[in-house]
């Protein structure tokens, strides 16, 4: 199964992924709307964030664990797994047991609901991957990535099979 992977050596901290995520998870997929509807901080309407700071950038991405701790801890049956872990907002009651139990910090407590990366379910590639200008985020099979990592090819920015795509807008 394809997953979003982060190659930290390539990242230049531009934050394009966060912005693309905000746009993608908007009603009409338009960045302008996400800017005027939701002030960027503290209620950022993204499910994918990159911290800008002195520390290493680290995307909060869901690993789609085999035995998801969030799913076991969910008291309302909102967290489910079918290939990917997803949060059903109709059932979510905002108790944040999942936030407390996710060891990767990948679930965010926004709008009184548990918000998490849905890997842009209905698109070919997630928005953050499409937006990344340096291919620091790639959407590949974990096995393929580990092969590339073994050969230490990831240091070359152009080598990964992840062509630069322009965002749709």
């Amino acid at each position, binding site marked *: 199964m394809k997953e979003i992977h982060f190659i930290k050596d390539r990242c230049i901290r531009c934050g394009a992924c966060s912005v693309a995520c905000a746009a993608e998870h908007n009603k009409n997929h338009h960045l302008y709307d996400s800017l005027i509807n939701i002030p960027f901080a503290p209620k950022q309407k993204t499910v994918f964030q990159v911290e800008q700071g002195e*520390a290493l950038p680290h995307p909060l991405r869901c690993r789609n664990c085999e035995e998801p701790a969030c799913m076991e*801890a969910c*008291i*309302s*049956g909102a967290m489910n797994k079918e290939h990917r872990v997803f949060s059903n907002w109709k059932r979510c*009651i905002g*108790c944040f047991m999942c936030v*407390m139990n996710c060891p990767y*910090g990948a679930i965010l*407590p926004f709008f009184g609901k548990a918000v998490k990366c849905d890997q842009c379910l209905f698109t070919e590639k997630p928005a953050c991957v499409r937006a990344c200008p340096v291919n620091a985020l790639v959407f590949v099979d974990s096995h393929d990535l580990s092969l590339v990592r073994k050969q230490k090819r990831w240091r070359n920015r152009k080598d990964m099979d992840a062509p630069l795509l322009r965002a749709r807008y």
Partner: protein
Amino acid sequence: MDYIILGNGIAGIQGALNIRRYDREGDITIITDEEYGFYSRPMITDIMTGKRRPEEIILMGEEGYRAFGFKFMKGLSIKRIDLEKRCLYSSQDRIKFHRLLIATGARPKRIKKHRDGVYYLRSIKDALDIKRQLKNTKKAIVYGGGPVGIKAAYALLSWGMPVSIMVTSPQIMSRVFDKKTASVFQRLFEENGAKFYLGSSIEDLVWQKGLKGVVTDRGDYIDGGILIVGKGVVSHTEIAEDAGISVNEGIIVNDMMETSEDGIYAAGDVAETNTGPGNKGRVFALWHTGAEQGKVAGANMAGEKKIYNGSVSSNSVEYFGMKAISMGTMEGEGLKEEIYEDKDGYRRFMFRDELLVGAILVGNIQGAGILLNAIKKGTPRSIWKRDFLSSHWPCLSIHPNITMEVLF
């Protein structure tokens, strides 16, 4: 192989699911004395006020049991376990088993002066009883300032009923949160119409054709037509004790969730574990610990080897938009505390010899899971940078030349 699971809570269901994961053939029977499928016990307060119907909080209906091939027997109470003949006796018939999981859970602690109008909150049936009584009541009294009592009070307040809350200790949620957090919540509740009677317990019930009020030992009279008691729970161990399984506060289990008898397992609110730091003779009565224990018990019952590493007691609450999470130990000898406060929230951490052992996060709770994982794994403090506690994103404050993999 015949597996029998006594109890239909989260521990029992996780046990059954994990047996099915490793054993596709065996017969799995789930026995419960309640009338509903697997439902979410923490959400019964919504049923009490009529916000949700009982069907809406059921997480696994009859078709779910059928899909996994579980035989579901509801409304059946088991009287006796025979360890030698390996069977269970109900009032009519007997059921044979090879391996048994006891996940009978717990029941509420009862108060001495029990009369009509005094209610406990544990199952859907209790919640429906309370709902019936609430129709002809104008004011409610909640006894107990623990998570159950406060949650019930919150449900009633948001439904629009004035509530008086009686707490035995000098602060609310004394075993979960510290003084400061408790006072934040207390103020929120008071603003929304609750009245607190701290440090008082029940002296007498005023009863005249129904409950009229309560007199506390401090001499206060509290007016109210219903008394909801949330004073903690006791494990349901009688059936195991009669069968000769060693029982202390709960059923004593080893790190594979097996009891003193071969092939008999226990998990959830009924199990007393000894694994993990500081968990000597500890009975957890939490949802996610039940899930963890049930998972381990189920895997071991199916012949897999899985070790239970101990849980960290943790709680997450959200009342009137204020989120708070508490985890680990907050009191004890040799603990150093660190407090960080800003406009977003309040964070308090407890350390023992450079190890994070406890934390309370109020307001901003992002990244709480990472801290809980750090407590569980015993991650040394040296891998964190200086600002990791004050940062909202603790995972980002790991020292640059240490990879994230240390944590997981």
